[in-house]
């Protein structure tokens, strides 16, 4: 077995040192009846690298690869070009095969990278501090709701209808068990988000208001009035960003008064990967940092006075505080955070601005071309790289009809909001820099056929 270095001679020598007659003697605490007699039933025996690769490659070929077809899906996961050097960097064995940096003297690489990541995320979101990552955007949002609960000592949260329905579903699930009350509703297929609803519902029992920016339909809303209304009653504003590339072009949530900004970092550096692993982003005001979940790298000095970094404020965390911790999170998503920070460093401010501009310009072009198809209407007044179309037919079968024409044309609102009739003609289309002129022609041609 190629992954096991011990030889039979080694095993015999070692058993002799141990003073055991056989391997089985080492398992003597396991009751006889619980021990399997031979190799476990039902699994094949070990296989060569070539044989395993052949099996896995065959499975991979059963999928339609986004890069092989005209591709326009978004809704929380975006296909951007990732520079080749990013994957090279995350495959450095010293990053890939290291553990959580509990021994800082021999983990400065990971710790400094975390510190740089925290700085980038905080600046991008317009916040003072950020942590070293969460599992993903959806779990980061729930942790933000809990954090607001701890800060305000209130448990009523108002969730905008523009928040990704999977994120809302996660929060609803968790709220059932934490005695938090969530006010949620589904979006309307119109150009305006539900700011009026949120403002009407905010009161002195409100812990937080949660708004996605840009929202699930791609709309961009000024968060300032919501922040002001929340702050007036002592509540917090939580902003959720699922497409951080947008922040190269639009104002950050922090600038508009958001107290906690969370998001999904997948679109920078990580890739689609059928939904995971991704990387949760989490930033807030410095005064709230002790209520924050997750790992934090902080600057300090070593015994010789040299600058170095350590995990810090660990008294918030489960391995110190156990049941009194701010969260149960332990393993987070550091390697994906490395991909994020390396990609963002390669982009820099100038590159991010250019990337965002290219996405927006492309999206504007596609929105105009598709909404010129008879019967197809553009729902949005505002958008970044993703917008919603109202088709003259139900969108869900239309998506399958587009697949038959070799096009991955968007996400139907019927998939995201099954049973919501008012939304069933909605199609969310994402357009990134990876979309070519030919891709646009293909989508336009196929959609024309499908909506006739």
């Amino acid at each position, binding site marked *: 077995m190629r992954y096991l270095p011990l030889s039979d001679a080694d095993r015999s020598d070692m058993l002799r040192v141990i003073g055991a007659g056989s391997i089985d003697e080492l398992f003597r605490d396991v009751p006889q009846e619980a*021990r399997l007699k031979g190799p476990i039933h039902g699994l094949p025996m070990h296989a060569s690298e070539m044989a395993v690769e052949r099996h896995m490659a065959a499975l991979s070929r059963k999928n339609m690869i986004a890069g092989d077809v005209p591709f326009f899906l978004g809704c929380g996961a975006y296909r951007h070009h990732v520079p080749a050097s990013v994957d090279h960097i995350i495959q450095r064995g010293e990053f890939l095969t290291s553990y959580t940096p509990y021994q800082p003297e021999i983990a400065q690489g990971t710790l400094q990278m975390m510190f740089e990541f925290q700085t980038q995320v905080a*600046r991008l979101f317009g916040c003072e501090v950020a942590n070293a990552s969460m599992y993903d955007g959806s779990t980061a949002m729930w942790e933000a709701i809990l954090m607001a609960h701890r800060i305000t000592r209130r448990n009523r949260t108002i969730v905008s209808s523009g928040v990704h329905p999977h994120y809302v579903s996660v929060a609803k699930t968790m709220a059932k068990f934490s005695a938090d009350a969530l006010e949620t509703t589904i979006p309307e297929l119109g150009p305006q988000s539900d700011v009026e609803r949120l403002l009407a519902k905010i009161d002195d029992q409100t812990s937080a208001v949660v708004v996605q920016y840009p929202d699930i339909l791609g709309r961009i809303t000024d968060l300032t009035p919501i922040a002001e209304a929340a702050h007036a009653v002592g509540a917090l504003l939580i902003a959720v960003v699922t497409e951080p590339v947008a922040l190269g072009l639009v104002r950050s949530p922090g600038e508009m008064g958001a107290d906690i900004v969370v998001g999904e970092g997948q679109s920078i550096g990580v890739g*689609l990967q059928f939904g995971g692993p991704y990387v949760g982003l989490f930033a807030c005001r410095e005064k709230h940092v002790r209520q924050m979940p997750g790992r934090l790298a902080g600057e300090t000095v*070593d015994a010789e006075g040299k600058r170095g970094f350590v995990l810090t404020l660990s008294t918030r965390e489960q391995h110190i505080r156990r049941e009194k911790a701010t969260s149960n999170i332990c393993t987070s998503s550091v390697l994906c955070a490395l991909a994020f920070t390396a990609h963002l460093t390669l982009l820099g401010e100038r590159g991010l601005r250019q990337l965002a501009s290219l996405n927006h310009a492309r999206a504007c072009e596609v929105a105009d071309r598709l909404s010129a198809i008879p019967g197809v209407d553009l729902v949005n007044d505002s958008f970044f790289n993703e917008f919603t179309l109202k088709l003259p037919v139900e969108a869900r079968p239309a998506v399958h009809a587009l697949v038959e024409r070799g096009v991955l044309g968007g996400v139907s609102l019927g998939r995201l909001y099954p049973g919501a009739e008012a939304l069933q003609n909605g199609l969310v289309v994402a357009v990134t820099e990876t979309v070519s002129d030919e891709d646009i022609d293909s989508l336009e041609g196929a959609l024309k056929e499908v909506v006739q």
Partner: protein
Amino acid sequence: MTVNPSGWRPSAPANEQGEAQTVTGNRALMLEEPLIFEIGSTEQTGVDFAELPQHAPRLGGLERNREIGLAGLSEPEAVRHYTRLSRQNYAIDLGLFPLGSCTMKHNPRLNEKVARLPGFADVHPLQPQETVQGALQVVNELAFWLLDLTGMYGVAMSPKAGAHGELCGLLCIRAALEARGDKREVVLVPESAHGTNPATAAFAGYRVENIPANAAGRVDLEALKARLGPDVAAVMITNPNTCGLFEPDMKAISDAVHAAGAFVYCDGANFNAIVGKVRPGDLGIDAMHINLHKTFSTPHGGGGPGSGPVVLSEALAPYGPLPFVAKMPDGEYKLVEEENAGEEHPNAFGRMVAFHGQMGMFSRALTYILSHGADGLKQVAEDAVLNANYILRSLQDALDAPFAGSGPCMHEAIFSDKGFAGDINTLDLAKALIDEGFHPMTMYFPLVVHGAMLIEPTETESKANLDQFIMAVRSIAERAKAGDESLKAAPVHAPRRRLDETLAARKPVLTYRTPQAAEAAE
């Protein structure tokens, strides 16, 4: 001379002691590296774009009107930056990484190659299901093997890491109890448990109570039985436990817990000791998470991503979360999500994540399982246990080994700093190991052993590596017992000496500030 445009320098020459000084602060292959904010600029970039088309923005009037402050680097600068940082890390690829309870085994590179096949890596989670049959089959095949290896009834694949899996298991338990109208409020957790266990129980809305260990380092069965009652929802057991010992009474514990109307949660962090040898389902377990990033070798990556599927008993499986993958009679695979759950899985407690879980980890773990097969996995457990016992017996005369007298250990061996002279302690031995070229063991955990050192070598270490490690530990232990105060200064050969963690926590600096801004903040 300036080392970088900001003028930052790793140390003033006056701070360097006992060694020849260099003007750069570098020491041959040990290269200092500034922060990206000190060497990059907002105008520098490592990515080229085509010319931008002109267009009128439709951003709702919210165009960004101030700089973000993101430093950019050209590609050669960026590659060098991260390569230099990487060289300040210890890693499995460099040597033994014997962190107890963490299972730092070799990460096969085939797994990395497979996860990067475009058919897995370049697939969107919301693609129509007819276009992702291969991905769904990977999830389903891995689920099948996990059930086979654990002897359990169902599996929830979506949890993102071990602690998230614990939460999933406890929420299944809560849902099952609520379904029978049973309001129980307490979860019992041994004192030796990972911190995530009590934190998760609290997160799921339970009150946590400790259960004591007996002198042999196992759960005190009689004390546990005495505490069980109508208020206890679940008992969280780690088996093998965090002292590296199998709980021989596991079946009796499960029976007692079930008789009291409660459920048994098993922390599967230590599954590597028994994979292919023992099935948790045969021990009466109701729910157990499996850390794919431990037992099944997906890389730790400096702290994640992990993946924590949860296997469930027949009693709990109906409450498992959405979505999951089902195989249809016609051989096709489908996702069971909120919309179709009603007919097929009406009692799901809800959803834990957006999308479907850690696909990139599933493809790696399945590759690992298929590579090893039934015979290889059994050998994994046997070699892991053999290596740990070899360390236990080779060090028991050099270090205090509190449970060595009670028989063999499983996949990890526990020692303590009892017998060290003066104020020399576990931390000092660990830091001295760094100088010898090893990653230290887990320190001061579990809490039930004072000054604990928990050593988990894993099966992917050769005897020669173990012998060298044993020699190093023996030498340091002798110095510690002899009162060699120089241990207090270790490490001296690492990229950094001991770091001031108190300062970091007292005056937190969590993001980079320019020297001017930092001064203004003082």
